[in-house]
């Protein structure tokens, strides 16, 4: 592991506790973790292990119950909803298992969604969205609606959407889970390329073969990090 690299994310003794009526669930139990610039991490673990909770906290969709989470120099664990929304908008690109494209918008408009919540003007938004679609090789499909695209193409639109704001990290939750193996491999190759271009990628996956392609692997078990290498 390249320790000399710049630290982007610092998670210190983070716990997440859910109160479900009488039972108390410790989804994350005293987890500490550092993520560096240009990391390519896969997070693995059985369901209920806490990997989704960890993803949500890294993705600033949720805040920890205990512990500190620093993103670059900003203390995420103390932020309110609006500050979190801004961090998500500027620093994080999400790729979901089910693509989560808006069905009534075309590829271009879908890629534009994160830019709408930034302060960019219309012209710049269009330029950026076109650029992102170029990167994923869908420059010919800009006006297609999601239902006119294949699964692999849809996921590429979603990746373009994640890239469009030039985020510090890309968070991918089972990005190949809904794809056939051929399209899945294409997407993974693409992630490898993004990594090579200097992007930081964090990916949650079930599949051993997918995890193997990453440079760093973190196993979660019962809310604790069981392996990090």
């Amino acid at each position, binding site marked *: 592991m390249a320790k000399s690299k710049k630290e982007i994310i610092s998670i210190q003794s983070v716990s997440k506790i859910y109160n479900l009526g009488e039972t108390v669930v410790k989804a994350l139990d005293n987890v500490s973790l550092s993520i560096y610039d240009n990391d390519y991490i896969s997070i693995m673990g059985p369901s209920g292990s806490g990997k989704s909770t960890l993803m*949500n906290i890294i*993705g600033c*969709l*949720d805040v920890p119950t205990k512990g500190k989470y620093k993103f670059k120099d900003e203390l995420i664990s103390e932020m309110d*909803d*609006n500050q979190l*929304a*801004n961090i*998500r*908008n*500027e620093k994080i690109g*999400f790729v*979901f298992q089910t693509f*989560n494209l*808006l069905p*009534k918008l075309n590829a271009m408009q879908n890629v534009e*969604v*994160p830019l*709408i*919540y*930034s*302060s960019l*003007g219309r012209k710049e938004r269009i330029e950026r969205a076109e650029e992102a679609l170029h990167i994923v090789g869908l420059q010919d499909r800009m006006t297609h609606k999601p239902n006119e695209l294949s699964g692999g193409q849809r996921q590429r639109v979603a990746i373009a*959407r994640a890239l469009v*704001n030039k985020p510090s990290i890309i968070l991918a939750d089972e990005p190949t889970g809904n794809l056939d193996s051929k399209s899945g491999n294409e997407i993974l190759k693409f992630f490898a390329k993004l990594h090579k271009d200097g992007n930081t990628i964090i990916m949650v996956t079930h599949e051993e073969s997918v995890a193997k392609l990453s440079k760093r692997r973190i196993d979660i078990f019962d809310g604790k990090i069981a392996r990090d290498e």
Partner: protein
Amino acid sequence: MEKLLEMNNFFKNIIIGLFSVRSNLTRVILTASGLTIGIFTVSIVSAAVSSIDKEFAKSMDYYGNDKVYVGTWPWSFDFDWWKYRNRPKIEESSLEYITQYSEYITDVSIKKNTWTRATYGNKASWVQLNGVYPSYQDMLSGTKIENGRFFSQNEWDLQRRVIIVGGTVRDGFFQGKDPIGKKIRLNNVTFEIIGELKKQGIGMVPGGTLDNLVIMPSTTFERILTRWGFDELVLQTSPEDIPLAKEEVGMIMRVARKIPPGDDDNFAVNSADAYMEQFNTMKNAIAGMGFLVTGISLVVSAIGIMNVMFVSVRERTREIGLRKAMGATNFNILTQFLSEAVAIAIIGGSVGIALIRLTVFGLASFPIPNFNGATLPISFDLLLVFYTFTVCVFIGVLAGLIPARTAANLNPIDALRDE
């Protein structure tokens, strides 16, 4: 600059809201139609009330704001016929007492009323007949002699068969040509037209239009038509003296009729303002009912919009989660859904306004049959558009607030997981 950027964001969210309105157009139109009906009825009610008001005021001119009338019955909408039916007729002789003793009454006339059949050649029509003194010429209100002249004292003394006619007679009998000097028959007696009254248009009060009126000397009236009709005393005063004059005339009438103290009056002293008051009560009742009903329909349509907005939030939970993950703040989502609700309301309202415009236009272009070319008194006001717009925005915000807040406060993780 910061503020400007925020404004920019605000409008972007509105556009997102409008976009989703466009993509659910059928549902939006169905929901908005509730508001269309509400806005339509509320406007029709207010237009009708204000038009009735105008027409009524015009009709009230006929009675004048400077006159006191003494008759058998009070002018009232809640008329207790049984109480008044045995009252004695109004005697012309009472006028002598009034002229002699009253301080406030400056001029008097009898007004004998009846309806009769008027004929000219093979044409016939029912007209209202008034038999009056020559002094009545100065007491005409709401109209004036436009053509020809009033009858003279001499003609009154000699019981001449001369008449002054309202505007309908010209159109009905003479195809719009000058009727002066023509002879028509009233109750089979020939009369000469010597004067014509200014045409007034449709009125609201029974007997309150002057267009169908024929005026003649009361002496002539008595000689030819004495068996019919009822008499009224018309007393001239000034507008500010009306209350005192009414009181005074009441006392003089009691003396003239020798009514013992403690007994009820067996006559009624009337004036237009009292009529107006009664009318206002009735008008307010109509308006109250109208606005209550339309108020309910507006509330119902607000509930309809709220319901659709809840459905919209429910359907688009994942979208909300996604937008939040992409950096939308709670306020962004709130604005998006609020503008959607307001847009639905405005669509409904605009269709309502269009319908009103069409209705007013339609009513104005089709004269009411048998009303001499008059149209239903209803008008369209630009202010109405402004009010409707305001009401729609208000209803949209009201109906959208709770669903939009629900959407804004969704947890992005749960929202994204929604199936």
